[in-house]
């Protein structure tokens, strides 16, 4: 079971709300949470991360839009069962483009190609083993 911990770099290039979305989505896909599980309240997560309430609220709103969360008033953020949408050619080409960009960025920052290949192999292994939903 993956760690139910979130890390956010407040000085990072990616806005804090987007980092929260990325980390939570990764954990949802990895099966760290079950439908019905609760996330911390907006206030609690904002306090723990030292960010504004609106930052966490925006992240939760985006995840709710993607179908991961139910944000009913007074009940906090509840994880819901999310059926995978049918494969879309746009999503696949967008993924390929972003993977290319990410690989180029990592190489430009000095990451060894062998290290990258190892990471991608590991990821591919997880996906073949049913690690994604």
């Amino acid at each position, binding site marked *: 079971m993956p*760690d*139910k*911990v*979130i*890390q*956010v*770099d*407040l*000085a*990072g290039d990616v806005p804090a709300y987007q980092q929260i979305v990325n980390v*939570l989505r990764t*954990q949802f896909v990895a099966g*760290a949470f079950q439908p019905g599980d*609760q*996330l*911390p*309240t907006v*206030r*609690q*997560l*904002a*306090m*723990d*991360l*030292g*960010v*504004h*309430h609106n930052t966490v609220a925006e992240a939760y709103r985006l995840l709710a839009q993607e179908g991961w969360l139910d944000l009913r008033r007074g009940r*906090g953020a509840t994880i819901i069962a999310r059926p995978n949408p049918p494969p879309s050619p746009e999503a696949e080409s967008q993924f390929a483009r972003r993977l290319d960009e990410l690989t180029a960025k990592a190489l430009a920052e000095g990451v060894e190609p062998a290290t990258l290949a190892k990471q991608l192999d590991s990821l591919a292994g997880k996906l073949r083993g049913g690690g994604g939903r």
Partner: protein
Amino acid sequence: MNPHATLIETQSIFLVILGLNGVLMYLLPRLTRPDLYFAITVPADFRDSVEGADILRRYRLEVLIHSLIALALVLLSLGVRFTEVLSVAGLFWQVIGCFVAYLRARPRVKPHAVAPATLREADLEPRPARLPGGWALQVGPFAILAAVAVWLQLHWAQIPDRFPVHWGLDGKPNGWATRSIAGVYNPLLVGAAVCAGVGLLAYGITSWARRIQVRGGPGRSEKRFRRTMLSLLVATQYLMALLFAWVGFLALRTQEQMPSPVAVIVPVLVFTVLMVVVLIRTGQGGSRLPEYASGSPVPPAAPAGDRTPDRYWIAGIFYVNRNDPAIIVEKRFGIGYTLNFGQPVSWIVIGLLVLVPLAIALIARSHH
């Protein structure tokens, strides 16, 4: 009561307070998180460096000198007329002197300050907002005070028309109350307000304070530290309830039957000493617990400190940050928590903690 014996008893209490304060101030720089030295974010190994050790040595020498001067003032008060003035002056000397020693150490640490880590982490398990110990434990102190109130009501006829409620250092009463609702129940009301205040602080620590470390040894030791702090606060609530219940019962005693205030001060001092010993063992945020150093997840690239930026601290004592949603934060030079004065809620909390007991005491005073 023998006035001379009472004087020695009360001066002994002053000496215990001086000793306790001196030991705490002497040890404090080593009780904080390793990457906070004199309330400034530094690399965790700085305090063990030559410069770090030299700053500590000079600070401790000053603490020792001020404590000795304070001790001399209290001892001197045994042989002269202005007992209260000298004893209180001794305490003030020590507190202010140690604070000045701390302020003098800070500029020597500042050149070694580093930017704290910008990486923040949080537990994704929701923390239910609840009172420490649950309702059952929280009701206890108020039940004790209510039981005394009922007892006093049942024995109303035995309460003298005028009875002492405040005593000087010589053990002689210097404040009186009359047999009225406000006069008799005032200590119980103040006690209830104090217990509610301590309960509010404990609730605040569980709900309004961020967790600084989540994973590994530091995360586990911080959790243990919080549990210890909350247990101490619940124990304080019970101690305060018993103390104010005891004072409430004094309404039934005549002047001749009055017990020595030492009988109540000694348990308070013993509890305080025990609390200080426990906190010295845990260190701020559990940083002195054995598990703190074990199982650290990844060596941090920059010191985590207490995850608050140095620039929002005034003299390392007052935290004023409107952009930080945390209402309660860890003290930087001390063990325990303080308020984020940049949050309006903090001022409401201070208002409640100060004004409510004060209002009750003032209302009762008008009936003295």
